[in-house]
């Protein structure tokens, strides 16, 4: 099996572009939420989202391209014949709205998930390799990374460019509003007793994954290794998570067994899914107790959605980058807006303030509708 390493990343959130923007916002514990001006929020229960402040979102394809350019440059990477391009996206929904409004100059192809992957592949000269979009909503880009790890570890490819994108727009905002899933007061309080739901946030990120051998051959420098990955499902409900976090624990278990650490004894930090919804947070807490057993109280867990908002298809890859920064900087990002403990959420959630820590290994979790769960284990290099 080939070792899978990360050699570069590019990222944009509501805090702006690049790692320093994440350090200021996510690690600073400063939420990015404000009333969005991208569309009329009058019909909805909340006006809040974490956006970059522009009245109209950029084209998804452009932001994906910019983040990928940054990732490739950081890695010193040139696409190879076998480079896979795997993107977590459901397509550009802002373009969907414009299409049905009958606006001129709209390219309907931008609404097709796979087209985003093809465009990205063409941009970096990787059109001869696998090009796929993963459309599993909130685990989409994590699923892309997991697939890339399988391809690289098995020797099928030596590199993959994985991305994810969601930019706040009205289509999805309206759906989450109708599902009464969003916080009405502009705060996202994961794991707190008074949590009132999630808020959406802009997120786009790209990571370059390669086999360690290929990186050695070209004289590159790994930032971290991906030593474990896994997915699992709840088999419980079309939208609610299993109350005991069964699928999440199954996904984490697969990832940890692959990382040769079945009990998670070497995990120093967990970047949780942590949506601040009524059902997710206690389920995730119970799932983590299943994973870590009696050690669960000693493992710091945080939800960075408290600052970035929920970036849907991009959540997996942006939080992968945040976890990578936790490893390289030796700092745990906090769960912002933490107020009072919920008896059903009783772990160490790194409340409100970042914490210095020697983080060698970290577990990155995501979950989605349908009881779909993913887990990735990163190791410092």
């Amino acid at each position, binding site marked *: 099996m080939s070792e899978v390493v990360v050699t570069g990343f590019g990222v944009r959130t509501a805090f702006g572009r690049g790692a320093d923007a994440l350090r200021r916002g996510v690690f600073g514990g400063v939420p990015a939420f404000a009333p969005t001006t991208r569309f009329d929020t009058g019909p909805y229960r909340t006006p809040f989202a974490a956006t970059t402040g522009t009245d109209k979102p950029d084209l998804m394809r452009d932001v994906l391209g910019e983040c990928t350019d940054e990732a490739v440059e950081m890695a010193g990477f040139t696409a190879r014949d076998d480079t896979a391009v795997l993107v977590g996206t459901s397509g550009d929904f802002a373009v969907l709205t414009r299409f049905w409004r009958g606006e001129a100059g709209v390219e309907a192809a931008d609404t097709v998930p796979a087209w985003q992957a093809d465009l990205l592949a063409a941009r970096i000269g990787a059109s001869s390799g696998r090009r796929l979009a993963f459309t599993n909503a909130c685990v989409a880009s994590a*699923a892309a990374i997991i697939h890339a790890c399988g391809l690289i570890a098995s020797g099928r490819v030596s590199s993959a460019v994985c991305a994810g994108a969601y930019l706040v727009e009205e289509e999805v905002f309206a759906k989450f509003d109708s599902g009464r899933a969003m916080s009405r007061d502009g705060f996202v309080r994961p794991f707190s007793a008074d949590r009132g739901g999630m808020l959406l946030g802009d997120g786009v990120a790209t990571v370059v994954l390669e086999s360690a051998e290929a990186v050695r051959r070209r004289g590159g420098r790994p930032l971290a290794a991906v030593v474990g990955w896994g997915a699992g*499902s709840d088999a419980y409900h079309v939208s609610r998570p299993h109350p005991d976090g069964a699928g999440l624990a199954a996904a984490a278990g697969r990832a940890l067994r692959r990382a040769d650490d079945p009990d998670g004894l070497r995990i120093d930090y967990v970047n949780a899914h942590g949506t601040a919804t009524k059902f997710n947070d206690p389920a995730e807490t119970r799932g983590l107790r299943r994973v870590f057993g009696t050690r669960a109280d000693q493992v710091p867990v945080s939800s960075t959605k408290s600052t970035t908002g929920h970036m849907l298809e991009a959540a997996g890859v942006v939080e992968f980058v945040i976890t990578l920064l936790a490893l390289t900087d030796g700092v745990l990002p906090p769960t912002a807006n933490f107020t009072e403990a919920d008896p059903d959420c009783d772990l160490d959630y790194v409340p409100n303030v970042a914490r210095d820590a020697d983080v060698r290994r970290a577990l990155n979790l995501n979950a989605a509708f349908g009881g*779909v769960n993913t887990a990735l284990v990163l190791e410092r290099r």
Partner: protein
Amino acid sequence: MITANRADPVPGFVESSFNPLIHDVARRCLTERPGDGTRTALLVGSTVGDSGTTDLASRLLIGGQVSNPLLFMQATANAILGYVSKEFGITGPLIAMSALTGLGSALLDTAHVLLDDEELDRVLLVGVELAGSDRTAAFCRELGLPQPTEDFAVALLVDRDTSFEDSGGYDLRRLAEGPTP
């Protein structure tokens, strides 16, 4: 292959044939060949996805109508994957993906990668496309792709003994059109 008018309805999934099609072909495979759900993965592929639900929701939004909470739940294929996983006790990975061309080959290739995992024995892969809307017609024109003429789904249950080469790398559209080469 199942077409929309032959797919049994699924409670709650009423706005589009996408989800009933997936459920119908999945049920047929998993009923005929029951197995260990803990060692089974579900993989759904569609170039466009559920254009029925997506475009309906968008037109409602443009028309100023209140969004239907059912469309929230059904906005992704995850919901029907979760439904199938509950019905058949499947706790392995659930994946939804999109490829612009060669979707059938991409599904088989991805299933092969999944089966590298010693904790999995079987992958149910489903290809599904809808005839679509003005939007799907528009992007098919833009990209020079053929537009499906009807809603259909195809499923294939592969296990550890089925290699990609054994399956012939079939494109699901070719599978759907009749006898395979």
